[in-house]
């Protein structure tokens, strides 16, 4: 067990001096440690946790913390967002790329409620964020005081854990517990609500910090049980048409290498969920693409045909399964998952394996036999050829004057060699980014999968850039999504974060329009947007950019974007009524997949 006592700054130590004249003057000088305020203890706790960056927005109920932060600027980088929702999404982007919890700092009431969408998003996508929220004085709690909101009550259903601190002494222990819970097991958001008096008052004891290593009632199982592994291995070894679906859990547990070793030994083809994309390089011969409502044709059909299905670090979301009762009808399911509540929740598992994806793969590898599955894995090629002919070739062919979304993503993929981090917002452009970008490195697609939060990409992109400045971060955003959080251009400009953003502008809420076209007789109910001049807005914030509307300008436009060492916004005017295919209509079986 590691116990650390915080470093004590010079002004916090006073050497006992002539102030006290006692007979023990000859005794060694005692060090009196000046107690920290709750706000100082919070800062020190964050330093102890290794936090480097905080995304936040000050306000009345969090001012003592911001005052303390003033003295910690050399150790804690604070990024002032333009709206608290931006702080939450930025923290998510930071966490998704770095694997470390993202930290938000906001005030009470509206400050806290503005975080809600981001917290719910982090819960859906198992993203570790720690939200530190100011609260009114403890003596005012429950009195409808100014800017008081029951943050604990409001966030209870959308957090992994939340806690209200009402005294300074609680701060170190609760913060260490918050970070431990947020990032262990199945990660998730944690909210810590801190009453203003707890921020202001002095601790009654010297500050000391012990990193939380266990919580009695919370024991995530990392190492799977051997009998579960053996049963899974037996199913795998006897399978004729096994298939693997990898989810976000593989990236969270950093199991990419183990996954490659596993599929190469067993010869099992693999598909990913939306959030599992980039866990396997897109050009790997065993990778069949992604699965689900807009996933690849081959992946959906192979799920329908496989005899053993291995769900690895994924949760059989309804966007993946379609009609769950008709999902993988011939398959015995092996479900490898760290969260026991996910087992049998949607799809009944013949062989559940509760544990961390990486640990499970390490232990499964010696139990599985080498195999080839040549005929089965090659089936994918014929489906891929069908999809290419019916969907991809037409989508990439210049048939009209207007540019198409796939052309943009495809060219971007080639120009960046599949190495960039794509941060996709939510809608048609998100599906195109998933389908046409050829991911080569892990953690290369950051998007809002479970909640489908429009406005996610711009703040998540700068969070990701802060999380890993070495990588090229490109946000792909629809014109509708962009207008939900465009004010974060100000954050990007002020902090000189070289984030690149591409707006795929079709003047529509494209995905809704597509559904209205296909399922509501083209009754385009309130989906057309009268858009502003996005480039003028960007320039107003101090971000350079330009608009591309012609095919012959696309290559040069992308070159300009990629060459910029500053934030840059490229608006691409695209075909208005373009649809995303393949598509599994909601509530149907994946076998009902439509190619056109």
């Amino acid at each position: 067990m590691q116990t650390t006592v915080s470093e004590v700054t010079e002004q916090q130590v006073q050497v006992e001096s002539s102030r006290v004249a006692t007979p023990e003057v000859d005794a060694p000088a005692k060090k009196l440690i000046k107690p920290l305020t709750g706000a100082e203890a919070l800062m020190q706790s964050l330093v102890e946790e290794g936090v480097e960056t905080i995304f936040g927005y000050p306000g009345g109920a969090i001012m003592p913390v911001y005052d303390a932060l003033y003295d910690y600027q050399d150790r804690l980088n604070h990024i002032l967002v333009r709206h608290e929702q931006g702080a939450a999404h930025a923290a998510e982007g930071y966490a998704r790329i770095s694997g470390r919890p993202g930290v938000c700092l906001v005030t009470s009431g509206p400050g806290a409620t503005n975080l809600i969408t981001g917290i719910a998003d982090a819960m859906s996508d198992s993203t570790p964020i720690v939200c530190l929220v100011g609260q009114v004085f403890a003596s005012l709690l429950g009195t409808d005081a100014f800017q008081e909101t029951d943050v604990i009550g409001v966030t209870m259903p959308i957090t992994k854990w939340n806690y209200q601190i009402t005294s300074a002494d609680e701060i170190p222990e609760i913060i260490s517990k918050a970070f431990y819970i947020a990032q262990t097991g199945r990660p998730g958001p944690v909210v810590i609500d801190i009453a203003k008096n707890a921020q202001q008052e002095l601790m009654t004891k010297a500050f000391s910090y012990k990193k939380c290593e266990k919580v009695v009632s919370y024991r995530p199982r990392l190492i799977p049980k051997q009998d579960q592994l053996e049963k899974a291995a037996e199913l795998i070894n006897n399978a004729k048409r096994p298939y693997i679906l990898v989810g976000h859990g593989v990236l969270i547990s950093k199991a990419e290498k183990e996954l490659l070793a596993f599929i190469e030994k067993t010869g099992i083809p693999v598909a990913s969920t939306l959030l599992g994309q980039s866990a396997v390089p897109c050009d790997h011969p065993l990778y069949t693409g992604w699965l689900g409502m807009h996933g690849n044709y081959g992946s959906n059909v192979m799920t329908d045909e496989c005899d053993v299905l291995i769900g690895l670090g994924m949760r059989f979301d309804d966007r993946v399964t379609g009609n769950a009762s008709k999902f993988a009808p011939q398959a015995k399911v092996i479900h490898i998952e760290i969260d026991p509540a996910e087992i049998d929740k949607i799809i009944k598992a013949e062989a559940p394996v509760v544990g961390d994806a990486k640990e499970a793969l390490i232990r499964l590898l010696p139990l599985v036999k080498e195999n080839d599955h040549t005929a089965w894995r090659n089936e994918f090629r014929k489906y891929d050829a069908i999809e290419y002919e019916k969907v991809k070739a037409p989508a990439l062919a210049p048939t009209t004057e207007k540019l198409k979304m796939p052309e943009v993503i495809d060219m971007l993929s080639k120009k960046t060699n599949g190495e960039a981090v794509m941060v996709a917002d939510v809608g048609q452009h998100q599906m195109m980014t998933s389908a046409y970008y050829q991911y080569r490195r892990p953690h290369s697609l950051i998007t809002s999968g479970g909640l489908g939060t429009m406005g996610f990409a711009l703040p998540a992109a700068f969070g990701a850039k802060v999380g890993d400045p070495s990588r090229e971060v490109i946000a792909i955003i629809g014109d509708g999504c962009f207008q939900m959080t465009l004010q974060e251009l100000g954050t990007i400009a002020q902090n000189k974060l070289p984030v690149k953003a591409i707006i795929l502008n079709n003047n529509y809420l494209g995905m809704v329009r597509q559904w209205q076209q296909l399922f509501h007789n083209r009754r385009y109910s309130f989906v057309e947007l009268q858009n502003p001049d996005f480039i003028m807005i960007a320039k107003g914030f101090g971000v350079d950019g330009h608009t591309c509307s012609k095919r012959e300008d696309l290559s040069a436009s992308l070159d300009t974007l990629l060459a910029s060492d500053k934030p840059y916004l490229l608006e691409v005017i695209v075909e208005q009524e373009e649809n995303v295919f393949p598509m599994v209509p909601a509530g149907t079986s994946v076998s009902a997949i439509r190619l056109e």
Partner: protein
Amino acid sequence: MNTYTICIFTENTIGLLNRITIIFTRRRINIESLTVSETERKGVSRFTIVIKHESRDHVEKLVRQIRKIVEVMAVFGYLDEDIVSNEIALFKIATPLGATPLDIEYINKHFNAWVVNWQLDYVVIEKTGSEKQIFEFFNYIKPHGIIEFVRSGRIAVGKTEKGLVEYLPDVEWEYYL
């Protein structure tokens, strides 16, 4: 429709009741009764929640969902035959002058019910037992005029040799009692 008794062991912290009941709300499951008290282990609370449900599968999913709560240490779901359970009810019965007198001996012997408070115009009778037994007594006593009736939630222990607290995470628990 089966009756399930769900026993939940938790840390004794503020707000946990909300956190647990919200899971029932989200799954649209009605809580028939709910009892909470501290166990023989210090700092460990025990929730006993009774629900009715058609699908055992759904109840198992509910149990797993409850177990996800950070402060929850263990959750057990039982059918009636797996537990010994009891409830308590209090009946305030009118005893005005001239009314049919209460047959206290019969009440004691046949219903195991006891008068716990005598007043001039009413008595309070305590009856413990199963829901069925309590309502049998309810029907017997009803003609006397029930001024007030209150029934507790169910409390239950499992019919296993081990105490449920033995299944809690392995730490040095301090006895509360």
